[in-house]
């Protein structure tokens, strides 16, 4: 069983050797939570990612760079600490990350947070990774020579093809396994047992929707609406509407004037989408298949095509919203009398609710009423894809650590 060593770069290495090396104590002692050796490395990486030559080509890497800046990292650590007087936070040990192949940056967030709290990490990078992932890898390798050797010693990014054996061995060796990439991935990976003390942190399939207050939309200033549309379009179209957090349905909340608000919203979105997010013929066909299929099922009553970039589907029943991907720029929508009506709609699978025109108390009331049945994030338009250390309802830094109780 051989894996390709992507970081640090090196010849293919046997899995047993890698596991042994990854478990060994790094130079100058074990890593601690918030270890300066790791922080220095992440800071250098952040600087590179924010640099114009990288950020221009891959704007999503600039977002990653901002996330990894020293100030941001300090704030995240401050939220984690100070520990209660009789608890000391320590790393979990060896963390095995299985990120999705097709969201290029997730592996960095997952791995960086885990490294930050002193874990040794093995990240499985898909051989099918895209350009952004390869750019990140280049940056990591570039920065490595000026980094404390403990980093190269304790952190590994590897690639291997279709090998259940390698996944099994790494699973058996780790203290925490982090699995991104959907239900089928989670099920497949779970066939490989973990040591009794270890656990899984899983990020299965999720879907997301948007809510808009009809009255707030209709009374909002021109610039506010336009800014909101651009934010919404970014949320939806950036990953071809296929990210967990990309809104796929829109709920119009209010007693009346829904048609007026929908028409204004749809017109603006169609214009932004056509100019900034055109779709190709294959995607256009994909969208037709999905839209016609939902119509055939009776799930949507009306299908409106605003060019190829925007398709609006009138939901026959708000609770029947489609949660699967329907192609870039396909939105099912319906009117609800109040936010409270979402209680009949929301499921565990629902992750992000992007919102326009609601105040914090209303959102808090909704979250309380939902009582954990679904919706892990309520964020304004334009923030759906902003990664946060709290993801899918989980505080990642806390998950990546253990607490030692010390009392006298």
């Amino acid at each position: 069983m051989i894996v390709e060593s992507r970081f640090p770069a090196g010849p293919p290495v046997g899995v047993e050797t890698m596991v042994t090396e990854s478990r060994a104590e790094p130079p100058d002692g074990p890593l601690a939570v918030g270890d300066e050796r790791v922080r220095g490395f992440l800071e250098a990486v952040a600087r590179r990612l924010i640099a114009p030559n990288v950020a221009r080509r891959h704007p999503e890497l600039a977002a990653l760079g901002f996330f990894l800046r020293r100030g941001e990292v300090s704030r995240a650590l401050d939220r984690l600490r100070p520990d209660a007087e009789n608890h000391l936070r320590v790393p979990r040990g060896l963390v095995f990350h299985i990120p999705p192949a097709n969201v290029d940056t997730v592996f960095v967030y997952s791995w960086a947070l885990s490294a930050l709290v002193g874990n040794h990490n093995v990240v499985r990078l898909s051989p099918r990774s895209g350009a952004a992932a390869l750019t990140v890898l280049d940056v990591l390798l570039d920065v490595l020579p000026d980094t404390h050797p403990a980093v190269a010693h304790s952190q590994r990014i590897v690639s291997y093809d279709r090998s259940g054996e390698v996944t099994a061995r790494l699973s058996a060796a780790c203290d925490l396994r982090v699995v991104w990439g959907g239900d089928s991935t989670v099920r497949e990976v779970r066939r490989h047992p973990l040591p009794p003390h270890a656990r899984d942190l899983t990020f299965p399939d999720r879907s997301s929707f948007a809510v808009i207050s009809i009255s707030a939309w209709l009374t909002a200033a021109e610039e506010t609406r336009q800014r909101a549309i651009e934010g919404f379009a970014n949320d939806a179209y950036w990953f071809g509407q296929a990210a967990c957090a990309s809104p796929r349905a829109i709920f119009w909340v209010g007693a009346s004037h829904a048609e007026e608000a929908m028409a204004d919203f749809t017109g603006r979105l169609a214009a932004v989408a056509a100019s900034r997010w055109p779709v190709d013929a294959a995607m256009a066909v994909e969208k037709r298949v999905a839209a016609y299929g939902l119509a055939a099922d009776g799930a949507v009553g009306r299908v409106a095509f605003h060019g190829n970039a925007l398709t609006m589907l009138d939901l026959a029943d708000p609770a029947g919203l489609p949660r699967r991907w329907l192609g870039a720029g396909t939105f099912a929508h319906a009117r609800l009398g109040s936010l409270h009506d979402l209680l009949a709609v929301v499921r565990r699978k629902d992750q992000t609710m992007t919102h326009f025109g609601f105040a914090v108390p209303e959102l808090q009331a909704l979250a309380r009423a939902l009582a954990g049945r679904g919706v892990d994030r309520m964020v304004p338009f334009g923030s759906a894809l902003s990664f946060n250390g709290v993801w899918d309802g989980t505080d990642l830094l806390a998950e990546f650590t253990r607490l030692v109780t010390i009392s006298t």
Partner: protein
Amino acid sequence: MSLFTFPQPVKEARLLPELAALTEHHRLCCLPYRRILDAIGSAPPYDSVAELPWLPVRLFKTHELKSIPDDEVFRVLTSSGTTGNRSSRIHLDRAAAAAQPKMLAATLRVVLGERRLPMLVVDSRSVVRDPTLSARGAGVLGMMNFGREHVFVLDEEGVPDVAAISAFLSRHGGEPYLVFGFTFMTWRYLYEPAREHGLDLSNGILIHSGGWKRMAGEAVVNEEYRRRFAADTGLTRIHDFYGMVEQIGTTFLEGPAGDGLYCPDFADVVIRDPETWLETPTGTPGLIEVVSTLPTSYPGHLLLTEDLGVVHGVDDGTWPGKRFSVLGRLPQAESRGCSDTFREAA
């Protein structure tokens, strides 16, 4: 009698009312189809064939679409799920099942004549013997109806049986005979051995299909295929055809001069611009919509394929109507989501 007779204006005038009536028939008899038409707001009057509402052909993979009650289903055809995807399911009643081979025969009559010809099958006998008949096997079996005294070019091991071909030729080579096979196989297993062994195929009528994708590896395009068959084996009567299980019985047949695929009188194509969805001008590529009056038991009379094509000319070739080529297949749209079918690591 040929089924390639209508100039385009005549065809349009004849097909439009028939297709419009079929649309209303399916609207009445197929609830999911009615819902689709209602959802997109499609209603008569329709002023041209291009105005009629089409369905993406892939819907037959995702949905059961039929215009007959369950107890009238006589046969369910399935497509080859080539990329591990679901296959199409096409429901035929007794009448539709009977019409389909009849119309195929009528379509091919223009090149095969009235009599059954001796037939050389460019495949192996096992492909039609397999109890779980593949799409390829079904295609071969369907075509075998048009021939007699069949000889298979490949032996049971899949190796070209030159002795069998030679024996066939010494027996039937002096009169017209039918040759059928998938494009790639006719090249690899008939053209190449024939050239190598100096076989004379000049009385053959070659009907082939299956597309040019696998031929890309051989770096052979249609013109080259025809030219080399003619130069090296004497075979000049060559007809590619295009058709799909979702419009079974409808065959778009290459004209004798190799100047494109022609539409039989009961069928047509509309090449659509994938941006505007309007019909493209002659010479401008787009997505192929296949049009046929044959599908009566399921709403498959107007189907947008995922094939790219181009109309080369209208009423300007050997036969009347549109002549067109298939240019290739649209790639599958890719999702870039977090949710990833990640079989490779597991």
